[in-house]
């Protein structure tokens, strides 16, 4: 049986009827057309589907849309305005991506980390990103990007 949910995504409230089995990532991509959130492993490992749910980074392939009812979701599309968000810009500037598939998830996790810890150590960055997998460029430049974003955001 379908249920109506009210979910605020990137500041805009959506009321939609969904089947309870619909995953949040499908709601975001297929209902709302926000395809910046990627589906990678689909098994709670890779973190390509990371979004913020009430400000906390979660894997949206492992959340039901009905669980997000009444909550706020932020996706990669919600980060930039006229200009790229400092985290996005830092990823670009430090070559923190190669194929780019993991990038939205990496950026959402980095954004969440910096929102609660503006000046993380390298180890804290690596720990925070341990649920996001990159299979091409490796993590060195990704860590650099987060450090660079942290510097710029604290200025």
């Amino acid at each position, binding site marked *: *049986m379908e*249920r109506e949910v009210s979910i605020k995504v990137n500041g805009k409230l959506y009321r939609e009827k969904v*089947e*309870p*089995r*619909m*995953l949040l990532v*499908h709601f975001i991509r297929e209902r709302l057309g926000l395809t910046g959130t990627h589906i990678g492993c*689909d*098994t*709670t*490992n890779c*973190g390509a589907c*990371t979004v913020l*749910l009430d400000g*906390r*980074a*979660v*894997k949206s*392939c*492992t*959340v*039901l849309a*009905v*669980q997000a*009812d009444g909550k706020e979701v932020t996706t990669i599309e919600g980060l930039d305005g006229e200009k790229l968000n400092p985290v996005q810009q830092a990823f670009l500037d430090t070559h923190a991506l190669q194929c780019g598939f993991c990038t939205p998830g990496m950026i959402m*996790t980095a954004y969440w980390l910096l929102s609660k810890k503006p000046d993380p150590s390298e180890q804290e960055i690596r*720990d*925070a990103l*341990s*649920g*996001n997998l990159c299979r091409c460029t490796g993590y060195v430049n990704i860590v650099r990007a987060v450090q660079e974003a942290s510097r710029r955001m604290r200025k």
Partner: protein
Amino acid sequence: MTPSSFEYFSPSTLEEACRLLESHPGEARVLAGGQSLIPLLKMRFTTLSYLVDISRIPGLSEIREENGTLHIGPMVRVAELNDAPSVRQYHAIADAARIIADPLVRNMGTVGGNLSHGDPSNDLPAVMIAMNAVFTVTSTVVSRRINARDFYLDTFTTALKEGEILSSISVPGHSGSAYLKQKRSAGDFSVAGVAVALDMDGRLCRWCGIGLTSVGPVPLSAAKAEEMLRGNELNASLIERAASEASMEARPSSDFYGTAEYKRYVVKKLTKEAIELAIRRAGGQ
């Protein structure tokens, strides 16, 4: 991947949640954070007709310390254990909360879910066994208390009866505790994990609890090793012997994570290190 169809309930009281479970025996499950259950449903290892989401029931997300006992609500997210100052002196819980799965899963996954799922690879059950925690389970009829040691009956099978929900976790304080685990890669389940809790009086061990993760059909207590330490002064040779005993009490099987022999070796090593760490912490270090 999409789970097969189910009906979803989001009750606002514990009683209503229990009633929903009771009225659909065998077909309904509690949905807490969903970090174990949703993958099972997606891969269709499990099919359920009804999910009862307890996340909107007020009062299940509290962490409170009272008279030397930590009370944890079942809907406390694992990440919240990290942020709560009262959890810090319950070292083994704080250790586990930093290394369960990954930070994103910890933001969603709950203490009650980790404990009720009955997966012998979950980390918190061994911690609760070591710390001698008591679980309160609630049904429409009655509340009862179950010691963590008596809660795990078989793989994915707990002492929870039809219509019962784990409603509170009470953890007594100890002078020192630790949880260590060895994993193959970031975010993975462990090869083995060991939780130790000690009540110390100088070098004298008044009481001790040891719990084991991933090395049996259920999370285990290493009862013989505990007995060796209780009432004795802890020195290097006794710790070594107790660690050996714990490794013999483990019931590992050979699989993807390693051979049974290797897992016993890991249990021995981690038991020794966890006892030593718990002793250091009991000394206030």
